[in-house]
């Protein structure tokens, strides 16, 4: 089994089309499942694989599937979350754009496992051009008998459609996605009831990320045990990483979980090191919501262990000295980047994307943005730093959905690790407009790989 499971055939010419995909072994996993496996067998393989949700939360997929309520006579639904909107993340788009049939094959397998006969892919509206590609692939799958009634004579029926959003990060939250798919505003729902019991149209529903669903294909093809043998500990299999920022080779990479962070940043196979010979200042490993790490906590954990690209290692040290793998949105900052400006920028994002339903997020995200902007523009006071800390603290954990946390964490982490830089902005408003703090603090750049 190769280390590349999802992107193995990505460079094959024409892999976007059905014929080429099929020639490369496509839809064999569906054949295997529909001919020789019960739906429970498929669930069992996914459980054995240790696959965890690739959208950001990292919840074990097999377990999520086993929560699905199965009342008699009530249709169930599988929804694919293709609302990829977490800043720093563009892997799902890459997968759908390059190899759409892998997602469709995964949708067939997963729908079969869940007993869902009508499944949907919800894609962010801005990816309309990707929707066209996937819609074309769905039509091909129908034409070749992989979708529709009685697939391959198995008695299993599946209708699959893709439907767009229209510009709302919040619709990546699963209950907001469901609301949006019902043609409503993307307001997250109160839980319980959970979607597994009452989801789309009040029916039992599973929502999985694009990459999660695609990963079911190699799991069925090679078996859950083989998948679990890849990776490290509870971080099994491979993960798509969207690499961006000040690196030589930004793009989407498939890595085996457990790869050292240092290797990912500096090796030619992946990011190829920091651009323009600059030094690494900070890193966000899992999309804009997760805590930023200062350079001295990136390649090694606080305990001095090598930091690995895995759920556990990236979280090592908790929020005090660690972060999260999240969606794998890997944003690299070189020494010229301003932490205050970046924090303000992300704060503006969350303010813009708050649905406005619950008070702490609706009011608090905008307040944080305004205070951060004041500091960035050179009008901040020392009290502003404490104020920011207090606002984020009162948002975190107190909102209906995780957007509140997503807005609070980056602010908290920036203050935790870069408080001096905030203070410098406040004490040296003129200087901070002219140049970057990182340049004047050589001490923070000890022991960087050459």
């Amino acid at each position, binding site marked *: 089994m190769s280390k590349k499971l999802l992107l193995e055939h990505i460079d094959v010419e024409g892999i976007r089309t059905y014929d080429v995909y099929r020639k490369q072994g496509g839809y064999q996993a569906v054949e295997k499942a529909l001919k020789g496996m019960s739906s429970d067998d498929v669930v069992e393989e996914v459980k054995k694989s240790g696959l965890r949700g690739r959208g950001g939360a990292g919840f074990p997929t097999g377990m999520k599937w086993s929560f699905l309520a199965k009342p008699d006579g009530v249709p169930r639904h599988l929804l694919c979350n293709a609302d990829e909107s977490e800043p720093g993340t*563009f892997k799902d788009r890459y997968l759908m754009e390059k190899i759409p049939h892998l997602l469709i094959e995964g949708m067939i397998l997963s729908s079969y496992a869940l007993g869902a006969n009508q499944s*949907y892919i919800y894609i962010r509206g801005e990816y*309309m051009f990707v929707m066209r590609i996937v819609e074309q692939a769905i039509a091909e799958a129908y034409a070749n008998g992989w979708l529709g009634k009685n697939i391959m004579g198995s008695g299993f029926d599946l209708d699959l459609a893709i439907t767009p959003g229209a*510009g709302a990060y919040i619709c990546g939250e699963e209950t907001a996605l469901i609301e949006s798919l*019902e043609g409503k505003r993307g307001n997250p729902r109160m839980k319980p009831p959970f979607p597994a019991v009452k989801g789309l149209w009040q029916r039992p529903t599973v929502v999985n990320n694009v990459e999660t669903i695609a990963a079911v294909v190699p799991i069925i093809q090679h078996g859950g045990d083989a998948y679990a043998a890849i990776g490290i500990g509870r971080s099994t299999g491979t993960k798509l990483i969207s690499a961006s920022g000040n690196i030589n080779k*930004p793009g989407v990479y498939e890595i085996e979980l457990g790869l050292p962070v240092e290797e990912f940043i500096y090796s030619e196979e992946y990011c190829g090191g920091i651009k323009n010979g600059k030094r690494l200042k900070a890193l966000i490993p899992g999309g804009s919501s997760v805590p930023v790490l200062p350079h001295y906590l990136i390649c090694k954990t606080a305990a001095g262990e090598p930091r690995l690209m895995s759920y556990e290692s990236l979280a090592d040290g908790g929020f005090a000295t660690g972060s999260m793998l999240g969606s794998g949105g890997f944003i690299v900052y070189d020494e010229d980047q301003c932490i205050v400006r970046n924090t303000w*920028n992300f704060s503006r*994002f969350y303010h813009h994307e708050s649905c406005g339903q619950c008070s702490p997020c609706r009011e608090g995200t905008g307040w944080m943005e305004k205070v951060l902007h004041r500091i960035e523009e050179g009008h901040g006071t020392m009290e502003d730093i404490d104020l920011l800390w207090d606002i984020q603290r009162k948002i975190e954990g107190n909102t209906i959905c995780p957007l509140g946390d997503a807005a609070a964490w980056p602010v908290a982490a920036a203050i935790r690790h870069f408080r001096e830089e905030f203070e410098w902005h406040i004490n040296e408003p003129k200087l901070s407009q002219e140049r970057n703090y990182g340049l004047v603090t050589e001490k923070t750049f000890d022991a960087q790989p050459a």
Partner: protein
Amino acid sequence: MTAVMNESRQFTPELLEEVNRIVSLFPEGKQKSALIRVLHLAQAHFGHLDTEAMDYVARLLHLNPIEVYEVATFYSMYDTKPVGKVKLEVCRTGPCMIEGAERIIAHIEKRLGIKDGETTADGLFTLKSVECLGACGYAPMLQAGESFHEHLTEEKVDALIEEYRANPVANYMGLK
């Protein structure tokens, strides 16, 4: 609501067929699920979503107008006010910002003589800075209609503007 509907203020038979196809993707009675996509079509067809366009969509899908207004004002891709024929939407979020999104926005502002959010006097271009479009590895970038333009430079932007000036493609999404 005007009593008489101008003929151009309705969908073409082809579009109505597309509406039916979209509605058919959902179970009987769940036609509201088609709303978001049909609003994209309406925006593409009518230019922007004014009250008349939204009321028309409400009638097509058997919804109360307020249900359409609520949705149309929630999602950032919908325009309830007129915009230019070509909407240049520049991503301004984190990874794009550090790769020069602000420089690109400033360049377009200078080039077109408009500020972020404004439309040129000839009604051709609207500039809008938007949040993350999922092209972080190919920054800076902008979206125009269904197209992503990535790895932008000032020169590329100039060429793009000329290209769109010569051939102002429909700016909106949803039409093939």
